[in-house]
């Protein structure tokens, strides 16, 4: 600096000279400098624009891939649902059609019996004679008119008729009772027919409702197959819901596994030693963790063998006989591990008591070693938990499958959002550099305001002279 200010005896003059020199130099290379700035800005702008386009292309590719994945997953899920619905319909139809001949026979027999009873009930018993009143009137004439000879005959007829009347009435009552009895016999048949028809109606209703459900599923399936936007939107939102719900259930399962771990880690020290280390972890802890992981694996295989989940296609594709064998094997291993855990949970309690007793002894509290009366409840609860938790963890397979499947979609959506944001940022940066070039050119011109003003004045004067020359001519 001192050199720069020392080119003349007066620093101010030196500084002025330097300023003039620099401004002159900058003015001379102004055109080149502007071109350089513009070229750099354009270059950066174009680079970022190209990068942004590349990211946008990737985003589109990812979107297409996501859409394909989503549709494929949705198609598979829908196929499973429809297949299951058809299975149910098949089951209902098979069951009902198998019983249809028996049902028909039962209905025909019931109807036949009713018809027969009805026919028999239709036979009307004879009415009592209608001329009894006339005979009674004739019989009364005897007393009024004093015709004793006719009276005795009529009296006999009267008696005979009364007797016949009584007999006819008796027969009538018997016949009526028989009819009532027949009608009474018809009641259970009616009831049976009613029940049978109600059952048939229920089955038909069930089939109808299932067919409506299948129609709906088929419509959705068609939408998925045709790749309609509405189907993609529905699948995407349901996938997100599935992701969060399954993540929540998995968190609960992790909590269960942690409790399970704490139940067996302590007694594990009795089996593998309490101080040996594997890396930075206690071998007992690792052993307990391995047992829990093996239980979860067995649970996964069990669920796969039962065809509840489809994480391993190999298991699902096994022959039924092998699959059933696998069910029994995995269940047996799970049962044994659950029993081992129950035993370890019991041992944990025993060890805890032992340790408490020793601590009390070392503290000099002899009375404190006595076991509480209700301690068996804790022991039983721990054993129960040790036995139940492995089976409960088996069901982790279901949310795990949902989580894995929905994770693909969620990761795709996150990737899509990231690429979209990156593309936007790159585009913005490209524009920023473009305008930065313009700004830099303006900034470059600020110190050159004097020569630029002079240049402008000279140009203006030259223009004026040229104009005046043209006017003069």
């Amino acid at each position, binding site marked *: 600096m001192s050199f720069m200010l020392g080119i003349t005896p007066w620093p101010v003059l030196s500084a002025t000279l330097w300023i003039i020199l620099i401004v002159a130099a900058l003015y001379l290379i102004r055109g080149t400098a502007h071109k350089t700035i513009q070229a750099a800005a354009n270059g950066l702008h174009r680079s970022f624009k190209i990068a942004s386009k590349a990211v946008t292309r990737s985003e589109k590719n990812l979107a297409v891939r996501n859409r394909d994945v989503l549709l494929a997953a949705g198609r598979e899920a829908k196929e499973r649902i429809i297949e299951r619905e058809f299975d149910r319909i098949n089951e209902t139809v098979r069951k009902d059609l198998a019983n249809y001949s028996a049902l028909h026979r039962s209905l025909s027999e019931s109807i036949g019996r009713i018809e027969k009873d009805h026919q028999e009930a239709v036979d009307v018993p004879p009415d009592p004679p209608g001329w009894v009143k006339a005979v009674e009137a004739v019989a009364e004439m005897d007393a009024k008119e004093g015709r004793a000879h006719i009276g005795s005959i009529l009296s006999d007829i009267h008696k005979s008729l009364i007797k016949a009347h009584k007999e006819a009435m008796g027969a009538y009552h018997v016949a009526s009772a028989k009819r009532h009895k027949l009608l009474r016999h018809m009641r259970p048949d009616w009831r049976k027919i009613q029940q049978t028809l109600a059952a048939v109606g229920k089955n038909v209703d069930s089939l109808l409702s299932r067919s409506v459900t299948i129609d709906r599923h088929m419509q959705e399936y068609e939408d998925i197959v045709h790749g309609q936007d509405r189907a993609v939107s529905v699948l995407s939102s349901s996938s997100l819901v599935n992701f969060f719900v399954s993540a929540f259930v998995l968190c609960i399962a992790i909590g269960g596994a942690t409790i399970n771990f704490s139940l067996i880690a*302590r007694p594990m020290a*009795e089996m593998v030693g309490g101080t040996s*280390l594997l890396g930075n972890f206690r071998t007992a802890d690792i052993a307990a963790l391995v047992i829990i992981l093996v239980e979860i694996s067995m649970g996964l295989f069990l669920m796969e063998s039962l065809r509840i989940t489809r994480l391993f296609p190999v298991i699902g594709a096994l022959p039924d006989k092998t699959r059933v064998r696998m069910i029994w094997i995995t269940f047996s291993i799970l049962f044994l591990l659950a029993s081992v855990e129950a035993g370890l949970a019991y041992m944990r309690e025993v060890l805890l008591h032992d340790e408490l007793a020793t601590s009390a002894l070392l503290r000099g509290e002899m009375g404190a070693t006595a076991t509480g009366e209700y301690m068996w409840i804790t022991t039983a609860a721990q054993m129960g938990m040790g036995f139940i938790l492995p089976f409960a963890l088996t069901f982790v397979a279901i949310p795990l499958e949902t989580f894995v499947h929905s994770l693909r979609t969620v990761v795709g959506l996150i990737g899509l959002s990231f690429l979209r944001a990156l593309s936007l940022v790159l585009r913005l940066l490209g524009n920023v550099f473009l305008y930065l070039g313009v700004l830099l050119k303006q900034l470059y011109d600020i110190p050159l305001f004097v020569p630029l003003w002079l240049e402008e004045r000279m140009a203006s004067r030259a223009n004026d002279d040229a104009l005046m020359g043209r006017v003069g001519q």
Partner: protein
Amino acid sequence: MKKSILIALCGLLASCSTDTTPRNKGVYMLLDTSGTYAEELTKAEQIIRFTLSRLDATDSFAVARIDTGSFSEKDIVAKASFDDRPSAVNRQKRLFAQQVSDFVESADPSPYTDITGGLLQAVEFLNEKGTGIKTILIFSDLKEDLEAGYIRDIDVELEGFEVIALNVTKLRSDNIDPREYLGRLEEWQGRVEKTGGEWRVINDLDGLENLL
């Protein structure tokens, strides 16, 4: 991608590498049974029980008496190297406490006090056990009183050892001239630190939390 998998595998293997440095504790406690100090043994029993409660599987613990000639295995009252299994450790601790209790009930006062011999025995025992942390507890007034003929003016190598003097009681003569007491403490501290050991004094037995 392959590179990151390789790095992750290397990291996993590195974390699985077995650390061979022992992390177990070894404690050797010397009990002064000379003269009137023998009356303090009930306090020593409490300290032993506290120490037992602080020790864990694979730790080693020994309690030895200081008598006329303490450089001997015969002076060890109770010793145990705790098993790896928690249940066995509890059994060992109960047995150890019982042995100490029996000793406290039947201990006879010794006419002389050979602290250096006991220290040598402690160093030998703990070195043999090869524990990661080595602690020697001296429950004594630190007044060494050797029988004629016993040579104890030797440096005990205490590199890696922590020596803790417990319940260093003041003698009647200390009350007359406290310099004697302070001099004893300084002398022992000097002997321990000279050979690379660490020295600590705990007289307040209510504050044993920092003992181990």
